[in-house]
């Protein structure tokens, strides 16, 4: 399921190293988001400078794509692998021209077929677990945090942004984190 054995020069072949990556990722995200929220609440005018927006947007973009799953970046393959349409019948000489890159990738004989049956099961199961965790733990926690912070700190718009930004990150990256956390050690490649 995991697309590569090294990521950013670090080996992620073993489960232990992948767990370190996941813990490091979420700790970094929490620290950066807390620091950015605090800085913005001290000087809301800073957000009207294009360079601040660019820096925050860039960091957030890196955070969103760091664990992969939505493209070719990161340790996870593109998880939308089963959305590719089944190739329709076309004259053989026109096939190459007509089949899109993704349809070619989905062809069972194509070497770059994105996700096999086990991967799809694992992906769906990870999303079920992520859904359950978000529903039972994260959402109540975030709602409670939102209410408490709004009560302590009535400038609600400065609370809404980090809370929702964090929720988006969790929705995007929790399934990948669960897969990286649970997949067993991989065999070393030649």
């Amino acid at each position: 399921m995991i697309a590569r054995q090294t990521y950013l020069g670090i080996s992620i072949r073993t489960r232990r190293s992948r767990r370190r990556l996941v813990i490091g990722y979420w700790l970094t995200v929490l620290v950066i988001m807390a620091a950015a929220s605090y800085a913005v609440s001290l000087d809301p005018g800073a957000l009207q400078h294009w360079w601040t927006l660019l820096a925050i947007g860039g960091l957030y973009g890196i955070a969103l794509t760091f664990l992969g799953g939505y493209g070719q970046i990161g340790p996870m393959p593109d998880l939308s692998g089963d959305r590719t349409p089944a190739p329709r019948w076309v004259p053989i000489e026109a096939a190459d021209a007509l089949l899109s890159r993704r349809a070619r990738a989905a062809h069972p004989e194509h070497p770059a077929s994105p996700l096999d049956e086990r991967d799809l099961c694992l992906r769906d199961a990870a999303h079920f677990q992520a859904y359950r965790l978000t529903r039972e733990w994260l959402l109540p926690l975030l709602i409670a945090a939102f209410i408490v912070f709004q009560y302590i700190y009535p400038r609600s718009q400065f609370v809404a942004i980090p809370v929702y930004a964090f929720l988006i990150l969790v929705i995007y990256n929790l399934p990948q984190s669960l897969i990286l956390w649970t997949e067993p050690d991989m065999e070393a490649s030649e």
Partner: protein
Amino acid sequence: MNAELIFFGKRVDMAPRHRRRTLVILLYASLAVLMAACWFLTHWRGTGAYVFFAALIACRLFLGGYYPGGLVKPFNGKVPHRSEMPPSLLALKLHVYHPVLAADEASYRSDERELSQHDHAHYLAYQAIIFPVLLVWLLASFRIANPAIIAWLAMPPDAIYYGLSLIAVTMFLTLPQAVLLWTEPDMDSDL
């Protein structure tokens, strides 16, 4: 998934897919109407929670999944807790008391195919829930960066956040079950 719905003591055949799809459309339309009515009555002040409770009731009576009752079997595969207390008179009068018999326990557990469908429905629902959350975040960011961008909106920004959050929570409670009801092909009728 159950092929029949027991609604206030009446057994309704839900085996054909078109009936389940009609139910899903009716449920979401009712929730949307309730939300709009609450906005026109009090601008969701004090009434926004009614939408949340309506979604919970819809889960208990029609959808199931995370709650006992409804069409979708419990996602956790557990048999609902059997109370030693006698049922309330109201529950008996409304025909909403469904005792869990020992012989029925197997019907609450999902087989391998159903488990795989549950997982896939959650995967699909997970993709959709991001949108209302993303909209709130974008609006909140625009509001701070350049308030003039959203000044033309007729609703106050806090009301928009609240409304979108309510939509996200409602989707979160109901969407996997709705996906399952929508996609499952016609079943063999038990009636």
